[in-house]
């Protein structure tokens, strides 16, 4: 099915563990983004990518790593999860930077 898919939908992990959130889009959009959403903060940009092998930091990149070896995939890795990274994570993509974004359904991550 065409679209943008995030997995897993829900994840509980322990402090200090590495966890990877997956994002896959079927449109071959150049731009992809990772946001986190916390109560009282709206959505904050973690990382973005303008094309395969091109990534850059957003507003809150510390503790996160991304890669973009293929245009359609943009995984987000928490190298050593902390409780402050408990959040809802949204992936988005767009054809061009001044077009509207299409968001995935989100991953609710809980770090215990």
């Amino acid at each position, binding site marked *: 099915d065409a679209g943008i898919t995030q997995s897993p939908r829900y994840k509980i992990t322990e402090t200090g563990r590495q966890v990877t959130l997956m994002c896959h889009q079927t449109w071959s959009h150049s731009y992809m983004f990772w*946001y986190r959403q916390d109560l009282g903060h*709206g959505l904050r940009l973690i990382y973005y990518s303008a094309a395969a092998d091109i990534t*850059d930091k957003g507003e809150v990149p510390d503790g996160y790593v991304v890669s973009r070896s293929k245009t359609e995939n943009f995984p987000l890795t928490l190298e050593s999860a902390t409780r402050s990274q408990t959040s809802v994570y949204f992936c988005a993509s767009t054809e061009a930077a*001044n077009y509207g*974004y299409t968001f995935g359904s989100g991953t609710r991550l809980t770090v215990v």
Partner: protein
Amino acid sequence: LAKTTQPISMDSYEGQEVNITCSHNNIATNDYITWYQQFPSQGPRFIIQGYKTKVTNEVASLFIPADRKSSTLSLPRVSLSDTAVYYCLVGDDQTGGYQKVTFGTGTKLQVIP
């Protein structure tokens, strides 16, 4: 990056027209204005985008005055299903600024029966 300011919340009765205004005093020449809608437990959904004057689609209208320092999202005859958070974003792709734009906290619209 142009910063946006929106009301935190608004209430409206069903069937009324709702106007949500966003201030962006530092908007740059190349910046577009984009609005998103977000329901609980879902990702934001693109509603409308404009550069100047008025833009209309099947969902909403976007009014942008000549100085472009503000914009107004207009939702005609709202229903209960329009209860959501609405975000205003400003950015462009010329300088890379748009890719780093943040959503802020948005405007929580509550539609009352």
